[in-house]
């Protein structure tokens, strides 16, 4: 289980690793908007080039990016399959009952597969080259304008950092309890929906009880160390925006404008 997420940060000192997490988040947001706006094959080519440049500059093996695709593979195949076999068109290459492959279906399926691939590669680039806590810090910074509407940005940032820190521990705890219950004969993977749901109870109760204990211990530790929230709170990790971040943003915005026009 733990291989699925927190192994995703790939330590390194590449150009992409050194970029500010806020910049990487902003670029990801712009990229998602762009993917939605573009319509021509050459636009996909430009954005594909951007992703390829990012992958090469990160110094991370392509294998890690392909691993990021794995959890989404069925969703991609399902959506692409629907487009491919159920899109009607004028130029039909193959037909069998309600299923058909047409030129329009092929084009739609290719564009959709490309959209998925580019978005997954771009967001994997962010998570592979940025430490989770740096992303949390970046998110907190980008959410700051929401303070105007009294949104509790500091609280959300604190919760996000704590949750991130404890997800791997809770996953280990889940695996341990699941193994203990399996040794007692509980089957989590087979049976009807109702049987599976009932099997969850011996997993959920110890997990939630120990989560309450963790929360109590952590609160006591934070209070005894003089934790205080709000304005004036000092930080251990400070984000620094550098010249290379500005130039990367300018370059990306120019490419984005070219792709949209």
């Amino acid at each position, binding site marked *: *289980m733990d291989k*699925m*997420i927190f192994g995703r940060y790939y330590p390194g000192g590449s150009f992409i690793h050194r970029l500010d997490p806020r910049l990487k988040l902003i670029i990801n947001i712009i990229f*998602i*908007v762009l993917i939605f706006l573009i319509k021509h094959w050459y636009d996909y080519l430009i954005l594909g080039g951007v992703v390829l440049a990012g992958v090469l500059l990160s110094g991370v093996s392509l294998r890690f990016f392909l691993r990021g*695709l794995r*959890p*989404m593979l069925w*969703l*991609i195949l*399902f*959506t692409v399959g*629907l*487009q491919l*076999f*159920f899109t009607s068109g004028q130029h039909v290459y193959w037909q069998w009952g309600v299923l058909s492959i047409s030129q*329009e279906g092929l084009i739609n399926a290719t564009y959709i597969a490309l959209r*998925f691939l580019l*978005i*997954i590669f771009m*967001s*994997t680039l962010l*998570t592979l080259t940025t430490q989770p806590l740096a992303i949390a810090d970046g*998110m907190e910074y980008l959410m700051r304008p929401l303070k105007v509407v009294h949104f*509790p940005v500091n*609280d*959300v940032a604190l*919760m*996000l*950092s*704590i*949750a991130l*820190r*404890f*997800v791997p521990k*809770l996953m280990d*705890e*889940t695996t341990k309890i*699941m193994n203990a219950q399996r040794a007692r004969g509980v089957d*989590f*993977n087979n049976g009807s*929906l*109702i049987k*599976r749901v*009932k099997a*969850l*109870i011996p997993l959920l*109760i110890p997990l*939630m*009880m120990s*989560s*309450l204990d*963790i*929360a*109590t211990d*952590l*609160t006591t530790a*934070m209070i005894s160390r003089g*934790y205080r*929230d709000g304005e004036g709170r000092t930080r251990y990790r400070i984000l620094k925006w550098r010249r290379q971040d500005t130039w990367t943003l300018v370059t990306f915005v120019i490419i984005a404008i070219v792709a949209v026009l």
Partner: protein
Amino acid sequence: MQRENQLRVLVEGAIFAGLAMALEYVPHDLGVSSVQLSYGLIPLGVYSLRRGPVPGMLAGLVWGLLDMWLRGSGSLLNPVQIILEYPVAFGVVGLIGITAPYVRQHLRAGNIKQAVAGAVSGFIIGDFLKYLCHYFAGVFFWGSYAPKGQSAWLYSLIINGGSFIANLIMGVIVFALLVRVTPQLFTRNLE
């Protein structure tokens, strides 16, 4: 003391959001690719029933942000869809806590049946609102991925309706059992 309590509520919310996220990695394949159980709804529901709807929504929002970031890369289409399907859809799960005072009151009085009814009703509200968000996202954003000729409304209903019902069955059974077997889960360490 009040500050300590506020911090306790936040930390507990963070840990339960983390647990909700961790549970999403437990294999829960039902054999139908479009129907998915979301085990994370259970700890989030328990937290919301302990602390009420507002802390519940905050914890749901954190769960949504974690899910978007750690698992959502293939499900991001545009900013509006992202906000609707992650912070909003996961945030409204916290509304399970609408029935929190009712559940606590009946647990303290030893009326288990009423407490179960309250917890289950809260869960139905949260689950319904979450999948309502996914349903509208399906209609307005994923609709373009539906096969040509098929209505986006029907496409989204097929994709999200199955998950909604499967999670509803899961939540009703789990909360009915949890309230009976471990009522202290909803009342322990509250102050």
